[in-house]
């Protein structure tokens, strides 16, 4: 472990990655503080998902620094190690374990020993069961706890996935398009849920839905062509000439 370089929870500096010559991320720098909620917007192909891939260890950057809690170099770890460090991720398309029940999904995500011996032989303890009940309550799926995840509606799957993130008890949540395909009412509920989570944990939200971003009312980072175009409140960035240009094209 290196010496602590920064106090920020997540610290990206000068990160670049290219696929077959196409620069998906180009000299990106970003910091997220403990307990902060950050919204990230940007046109298609701006590098939002790739950025998440880099943070969660799915993609290795060609160059640049990615630090977690100021000292852990995330580029040296793989997905499962990063997950265990305390970074949870929700995918763009809701990915839950469809052949398992809602309760099992949460149980599997619960923060505990994931080794082979433990998974083969250990039972779920009373406290762990209580925690699952809490989360079920939080994501409003208590009645459907013994249903298969496959039977859930789209929005419920999104929530279940967020619930799984909570069960992981991470320090940082990466949430990719949490309200895609949701009804307006669900969107509002989701915004509330995320805001409850923030404060305790840091959250990065990627979203296209501007109403939702407005509901969140947090600092916004605009990505375009793989780097940060603008940063600030939603009103501030939407007034920015370059942002308008990059969204509308030339």
């Amino acid at each position, binding site marked *: 472990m290196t010496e602590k370089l920064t106090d920020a929870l997540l610290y990206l500096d000068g990160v670049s990655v290219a696929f077959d010559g196409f620069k998906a991320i180009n000299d990106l720098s970003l910091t997220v503080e403990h307990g902060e909620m950050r919204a990230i917007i940007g046109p298609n192909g701006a590098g939002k998902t790739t950025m998440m891939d880099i943070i969660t260890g799915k993609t290795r950057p060609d160059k640049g620094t990615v630090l977690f809690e100021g000292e852990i170099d995330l580029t040296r770890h793989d997905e499962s190690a990063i997950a265990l460090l305390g970074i949870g991720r929700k995918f763009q398309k809701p*990915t839950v374990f*469809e052949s*398992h029940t809602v309760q099992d999904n949460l149980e*599997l995500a619960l923060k505990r020993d*994931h080794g082979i011996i*433990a*998974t083969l032989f250990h039972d*779920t303890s009373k406290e762990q069961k209580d925690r699952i009940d809490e989360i079920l309550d939080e994501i409003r799926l208590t009645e459907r706890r013994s249903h298969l995840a496959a039977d859930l509606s789209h929005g419920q799957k999104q929530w279940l996935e967020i619930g799984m993130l909570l069960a992981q008890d991470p320090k940082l949540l990466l949430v990719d398009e949490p309200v895609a395909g949701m009804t307006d009412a669900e969107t509002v509920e989701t915004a509330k849920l995320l805001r409850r989570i923030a404060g305790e944990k840091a959250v990065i939200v990627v979203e296209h839905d501007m109403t939702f971003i407005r509901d969140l009312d947090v600092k916004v980072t605009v990505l375009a062509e793989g780097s940060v175009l603008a940063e600030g409140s939603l009103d501030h960035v939407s007034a920015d000439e370059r942002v308008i240009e990059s969204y509308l094209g030339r």
Partner: protein
Amino acid sequence: MITGFLFRALDRKAILVALILLAIAVAVPVSNLMLPVSHPLHVPTHIMALFGKYLTYALLALALDLVWGYCGILSLGHGAFFALGGYAMGMYLMRQIGTRGVYGHPILPDFMVFLNWKELPWYWYGFDQFWFAALMILLVPGALAFVFGWFAFRSRVSGVYLSIITQALTYALLLAFFRNEMGFGGNNGLTDFKDILGYSVQAQTTRASLFAATAIALAIAFVICSGIVNSRFGKVLVCVRDAESRTRFIGYRVEHIKLFAFVVSAMMAGVAGALYVPQVGIINPGEFAPANSIEVVIWTAVGGRGSLIGPIIGAIAVNGGKSYFTAAFPEFWLFALGGLFVATTLFLPKGIVGLVSSGFAKLRGPREADRVEETLQPGTEAAQ
């Protein structure tokens, strides 16, 4: 800890299957040995031998199902583990021949004598002891699976790439074992066995005991698999099958999980091979043929993968069919067999077990039927 595992393992289904298998293990040999030939419930020796063979196939299919049906690793090379277990047993049986070989050599097997080998190769040492052979039956397939899986899963080789390299593995072993220089008898393999644990392999009582041992081994394997599948580990296996990267993102070491399942499965396949060899009386490189491994996949699919009972039913049904067809329509049985595979995939995508359980579920109500289908439908991540 272990009690918890056993408690989970022995659900109703597992108890039922284990009891049936134990009953078979007792009833068939008893009927074969005790009842007179004319008795309607007498099981003739050749039928017992046949079903003994099917049960080893069932064990092999069960092993494959653990990695394929539950973990989504389609191994087209499981025959290799089966054959390695078989060779380990075959080597023990060869050493038991002693001076009764055609040349009467005290140590060297016949094929070494007539190819002018002067001394026993080092890797044949120890196989005169049953305990050593038994250890090797588990260790050799396990070690191969470990080394192979360690590299493959760490490099995240998956889907068809993994299937094809498992096929390459068994094909390479096939070619290697064909080589007479390897010291495993080349194309002829190992044969002409005399004794196992001091009993003649041809004796009816030995055959009956081997049959019983196979049924018991299958019962034990079933309970172990049931325990694995019902544990949190088993649920994680299904997670890996359905959404591998999601499983990584909640902090599971997918490569370790796959590796463990793969090694356990390979060891089970090795045991199946070891039980197979004394019952059929020969082990040769043909068992490594890629076509054999593909057949195992087919048994599993026909029976219904992703359920533990499916592969057992599939292995017995397909092989029973094959035995019947090759005698009844020797010139057309391939049409029947080929047609069966096509029909199964088209009309019974979940195999026999899927058909039966969705049939039951439909009786209970449409909602249930859907659920059964969902459980048995292993979504593939590649399909997204």
